């Protein structure tokens, strides 16, 4: 059982190592790519040391990263706590769907980033505006997938629960929620991705802290090494949060993951 996943991990590491060697060759060794366009590993390392120690754009990398992480977490959690129940409700009640869907259909095609100007106008350049925009962008996938999750529940399962005399609240908690949970988790994953995308965009437009702000400052300073540090930091943060979510999903859906194996 272990060998295939180990081998997969090894191949992944090898690819990564290959890329780094290629990077090294193209920049430091041959100089084919000039330092003004893309940093060499050495320049990257210097930038990383600078922002980790003295700091850059007003803070150290850890503070910037933590700040961004906090905003994503808050926006994501608010989006999930509002989006999933709304999606479940719309999936369960045709009337709720009839009421809410028209509004949803109009709002949904608006790209989340189009909310940024309004958010800044209302709430300024601070955290609240960013949380609002993240909320709006992460909200949609949570709603849609929770809705679809409920609609896809097999009819006999619901009928079995009704036949057993299951009261309403227990029906929601023990039948509808678990039955829809594989789709709900798909929605959460998409919501998390949307959260990071939106956060970086919002911080690029206007911020005083955060990884997007680092990127924006590095661009203005024409500082390729620092741009790369910012990009890789976002990538790692996105990867780590997705990993956490996947862990939670695996735990919550043990009955389902095992069924797929």
């Amino acid at each position, binding site marked *: 059982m272990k060998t295939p996943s180990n081998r997969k991990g090894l191949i992944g590491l090898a690819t990564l190592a290959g890329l780094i060697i290629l990077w090294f060759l193209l920049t430091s060794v041959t100089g084919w790519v000039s330092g003004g366009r893309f940093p060499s590993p050495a320049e990257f390392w210097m930038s990383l040391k600078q922002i980790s120690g003295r700091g850059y754009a007003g803070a150290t990398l850890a503070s910037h990263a933590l700040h961004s992480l906090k905003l994503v977490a808050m926006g994501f959690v608010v989006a999930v706590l509002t989006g999933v129940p709304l999606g479940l409700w719309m999936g369960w009640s045709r009337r709720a769907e009839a009421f809410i869907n028209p509004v949803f259909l109009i709002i949904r095609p608006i790209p989340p980033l189009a909310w940024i100007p309004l958010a800044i106008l209302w709430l300024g350049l601070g955290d609240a505006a960013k949380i609002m925009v993240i909320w709006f962008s992460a909200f949609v996938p949570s709603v849609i997938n929770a809705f679809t999750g409920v609609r896809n529940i097999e009819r006999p399962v619901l009928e079995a629960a*009704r036949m057993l005399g299951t009261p309403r609240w227990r029906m929601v908690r023990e039948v509808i929620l678990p039955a829809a949970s594989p789709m709900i988790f798909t929605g959460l994953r998409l919501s998390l991705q949307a959260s990071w995308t939106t956060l970086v965009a919002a911080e690029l437009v206007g911020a005083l802290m955060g990884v997007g702000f680092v990127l924006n400052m590095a661009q203005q300073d024409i500082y390729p090494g620092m741009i790369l540090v910012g990009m890789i930091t976002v990538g790692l943060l996105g990867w780590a949060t997705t990993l956490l979510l996947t862990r939670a999903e695996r735990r919550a859906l043990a009955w389902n993951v*095992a069924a797929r194996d």
Partner: protein
Amino acid sequence: MGSISFQSVDKVFGGSVKALDDINLEIADKEFVAIVGPSGCGKTTCLRMVAGFEAASSGTVSVNGRPVTSPGPDRAVVFQQFALFPWKTVRENIDLGLRNKNLAIGERSELIAGALKLMNLESHADAFPHQLSGGMQQRVAIARAYVLDPEVLLMDEPFGALDAQTRVVMQEELVRISRRNPRTVLFITHAVEEAVYLADRVAIMTRRPGRIKEVLDIKAVREREAWDKYPKIEDVMDLESFVHLRTHIWKSLREEKGFKDV
């Protein structure tokens, strides 16, 4: 007590498609009645109306003289596709109906133990449904229904999704448990042998719009010819009295143009 009564029941789908036409059928307490008929004749609709999943367009479906209005644990259903809760263990699946009745935990575990024993599931109590074979899953569904001690048991082609060997085992099991705990059973199937082997009476339906064409008394023949002496289904199926009934139903169904099953 668990009598079922269909009185002049019609069912129309979508305002125009007549599915059932003037169904009249009285099922006595502890009687096992099977309905056979061609695909799409509305036999499952009959069961769903007793379950409370669907309402009659006209006429009355009643259980113990009370018209059916909604689903409830007094009318336990066993579905063709098992309809277990995959996120619950076998024990939790069986327990849900008991919890809904607000029984004390001690009483519940006693009843669950009894149901597990009845269906030979003791060693699988903590397994999840996906870890069990189809036959085992249907045992869980039957246990989940039996544990409620329902007045009537509604079985909608319960063995239709099982392979041939498992099916025979389950049929014998059902005979065993229904002899030990007699219940009023409404059993829907398109398998003629199954109906004759299991039921006290067999109702034959016409193709759509479904009407009850004929009701055969199997119990009288079974008792006269002492079918219960034979422990194996294949021995009963070889008896001349069994073959005679089966052929009769078979011919009756063949007259219905829509009959392509089996």
